[in-house]
């Protein structure tokens, strides 16, 4: 019953999306307010039905109804409750349902809080949103229906892929989807602006908070996924330049560029055409990411098992939306009027530079990700493009970008003073030089790159703090005055400081981890001692444990430093009975922001265990940086001036609407 109800709710949502795709557009053509308002009610109703559909699937998983194929294939009655719920999106069908649920959620939010939007703009935005929704409802209903039944229901399910039975999975996909799909709003706004042929600074004020929300979630989602790979896959790596990871990095890069160009558009009414293009590209890259991950073109943990019809269907959606929106762009972009002028050296200029480097870096990732696919189609050769390619292309492009980061906020709008900005950044420059000198002396002529790169990170962090000190007139006025000024600063200024500092923090973490990571692999018997980066690791023996749906072999390691016991680490290997597969659970020991990492390999016949041990200096900064960036985003979002949906008092806008 529940499965059929869920299925039916999804069909109804499709029907509503079809109405929402057409009626408001007709209304806008006829200047009929009632028809345009249909968009609002259908968007809210659509959200209701999709939520019902999603709730139905969750219920089926929670109650372990194995008469549904999706539940049978991905669940097990003995699985812990939390993984019964997260298992809903740990498979193709369920994750696509999550995708449309989030899409409907964003549409519903615009409908609910977009009271102050001009009526025709809101109608157009929601209609475009419904086009995307329609395509994906059709995709789910025609190729990946999660509510399919089995005629003779089995007694037990096949269990979820053990690698996915982890708390990281509970958080990572919804976060990532909130990011991916959140960019659909800026896309819809861009297409709506093109259809209307009208765009102004107010448009940017509406788009920016939505982009910011999506960007925050995408940032956290990528960081979360990276940390999950780090501790769950047992290799100690946190980024593999895997196509699936690149698929999420590309929209992030484009989205970051969009975030910055929207500032220029809002404040200075310039870069309109470019901002619209970026909004289209960002969501196109999100769609591309969905295609790469969902079509089975790539094989990885994320791809699940898939059949070719799905790939072709998504490719079709991809072509229609990207091709269609770009055609519309070429046709209509000239209708958008050009805005304010600015000198190359100015805040706008710095933001253009930011956009230039971010999009170029994004393009190199794009080439590195799609070149192997293109080559395989054209010549049949199979190649892999790995970390060396990206280190040679992506990294050099990020260096000038990071050097420019502290300068941006220091420059004035319209016409900036580079010399003045440099003088105000002198403290950051000195701090960076000291960091480079100290590190270089400490490593005694080791790699030159690492101290320089860390110096760059320090420059970005201290540069962000310099900007803050400058704005609150620290050191120039008495401290209480400066403090009062700091409290009076707009939250978005604080947001910029945190986000930029986060970038520097992440860079320092990345450089430290890749340069000074120590690895030790050994075959150990009980009471063997391994030495790693000044720590002594004593293997004390193995123990067995039986959990609800797996058996676990737990190794005990006593960690000591200079003869003093520090802690006990217990890495383990889990054997999942239902699938007969095993996973490695690494043990992590935090020391400051560094970590000790132990993961287990095979046990030999004589009882010796293969053990992989790492000491990873400063590794936590890699994820702490993105968290800081996201926190900066949240601060910026809470700024009164661009709170979601409330740039103006609601009363005034209602009066405006009535006048139309």
């Amino acid at each position, binding site marked *: 019953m529940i499965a059929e109800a869920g299925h039916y709710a999804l069909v109804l949502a499709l029907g509503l999306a079809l109405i929402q795709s057409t009626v408001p557009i007709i209304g806008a053509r006829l200047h009929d307010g009632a028809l345009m308002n249909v968009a609002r009610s259908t968007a809210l109703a659509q959200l209701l039905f999709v939520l019902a559909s999603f709730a139905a699937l969750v219920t089926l998983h929670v109650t372990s109804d194995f008469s549904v194929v999706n539940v049978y294939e991905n669940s097990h009655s003995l699985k812990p409750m939390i993984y019964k719920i997260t298992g809903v999106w740990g498979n193709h069908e369920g994750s696509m349902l999550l995708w449309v649920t989030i899409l409907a959620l964003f549409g519903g939010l615009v409908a609910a809080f977009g009271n102050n939007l001009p009526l025709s703009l809101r109608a157009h935005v929601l209609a475009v949103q419904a086009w995307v929704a329609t395509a994906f409802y059709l995709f789910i209903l025609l190729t990946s229906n999660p509510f399919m039944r089995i005629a003779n229901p089995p007694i037990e399910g096949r269990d979820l892929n053990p690698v996915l039975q982890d708390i990281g999975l509970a958080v990572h996909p919804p976060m990532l989807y909130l990011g991916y799909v959140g960019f659909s709003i800026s896309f819809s706004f861009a297409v709506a602006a093109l259809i209307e042929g009208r765009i102004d600074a107010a448009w940017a004020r509406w788009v920016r908070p939505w982009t910011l929300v999506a960007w925050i979630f995408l940032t956290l989602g990528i960081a979360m996924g990276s940390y999950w790979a780090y501790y769950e896959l047992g290799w100690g790596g946190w980024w593999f330049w895997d196509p699936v990871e690149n698929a999420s990095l590309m929209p992030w890069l484009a989205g970051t560029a969009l975030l910055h160009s929207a500032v220029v558009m809002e404040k200075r009414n310039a870069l309109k055409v470019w901002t619209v293009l970026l909004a289209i590209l960002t969501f196109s890259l999100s769609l591309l990411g969905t295609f790469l991950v969902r079509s089975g073109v*790539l*094989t990885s943990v994320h791809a699940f098992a898939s059949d070719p019809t799905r790939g072709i269907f998504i490719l079709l959606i991809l072509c229609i939306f990207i091709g269609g929106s770009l055609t519309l762009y070429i046709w209509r972009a000239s209708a958008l009027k050009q805005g304010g002028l600015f000198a190359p050296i100015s805040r706008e200029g710095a933001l253009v530079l930011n956009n*230039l480097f971010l999009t170029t870096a994004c393009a190199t990732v794009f*080439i590195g990700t799609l070149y*192997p696919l293109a080559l395989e189609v054209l010549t049949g050769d199979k*190649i892999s493009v790995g970390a060396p390619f990206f280190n040679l*292309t992506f990294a050099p492009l990020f260096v000038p970008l990071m050097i420019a980061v502290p300068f941006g906020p220091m420059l004035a709008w319209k016409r900036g003073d580079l010399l003045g900005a440099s003088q105000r950044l002198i403290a950051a420059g000195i701090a960076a030089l000291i960091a480079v000198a100290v590190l270089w002396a400490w490593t005694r002529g080791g790699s030159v790159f690492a101290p320089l790169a860390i110096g760059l990170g320090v420059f970005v962090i201290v540069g962000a703090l310099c900007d803050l000190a400058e704005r609150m007139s620290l050191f120039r006025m008495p401290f209480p005055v400066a403090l009062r000024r700091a409290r009076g600063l707009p939250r978005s200024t604080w947001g910029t400081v945190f986000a930029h500092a986060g970038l520097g923090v992440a860079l320092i973490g990345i450089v430290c981890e890749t340069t000074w990571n120590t690895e030790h692999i050994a075959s150990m018997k009980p009471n063997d001692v391994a030495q790693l980066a000044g720590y002594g690791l004593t293997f004390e023996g193995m123990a067995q444990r039986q959990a609800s749906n797996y058996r676990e072999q737990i190794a005990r390691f006593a960690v000591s430093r200079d003869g003093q016991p520090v802690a006990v680490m217990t890495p383990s290997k889990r054997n999942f009975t239902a699938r007969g*597969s095993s996973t490695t659970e690494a043990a992590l020991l935090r020391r400051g922001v560094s970590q000790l990492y132990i993961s287990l390999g095979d046990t030999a016949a004589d009882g010796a265990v293969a053990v992989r041990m790492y000491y990873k200096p400063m590794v936590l900064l890699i994820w702490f940086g993105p968290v800081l960036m996201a926190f900066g985003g949240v601060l910026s979002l809470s700024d009164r001036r661009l709170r979601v949906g409330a740039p103006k008092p609601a009363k005034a806008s209602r009066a405006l609407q009535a006048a139309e």
Partner: protein
Amino acid sequence: MTRKQRRLTMIGGSLAVLAIAAALVLNALRDSIVFFSTPVMVAEKHIPPGRRFRLGGMVLKGSLVRGDNLAVSFKVSDGSATLPVAYKGILPDLFREGQGVVAEGALDGSGVFKADLVLAKHDETYMPKEVADALKKQGHWKDDYGELASHKQGVPR
């Protein structure tokens, strides 16, 4: 500066960055890509020792030998040729005899493939996509490799 000059500065700057990026990409594509081969392709193409490539195929049943100090050796087969592989380290969780594998490394002088990376890139059917495609192309694809997959699709409705 006039409007025209400003625009020219912008366009010139953008083109310069794009040109640098293009140069970086072309340079990197020349040096840092890795080709994929199966054992029979290795024999046909005469890949010289020392050239890095990815080897894919099935781990031959009964060929896995564990040596001292985490050294392992096994044979990779694609149905018509086999190639011995030597590796030192911990094999991934999903490594099994009789199942697909992808290893990255280079041939040494004696014709042994020295792997420094063994990948566990599998889908749910424990078959790397590259290997499945290559085996299908060479006509060595056996249905039981895809047994799990067909079982999945053959679920009674």
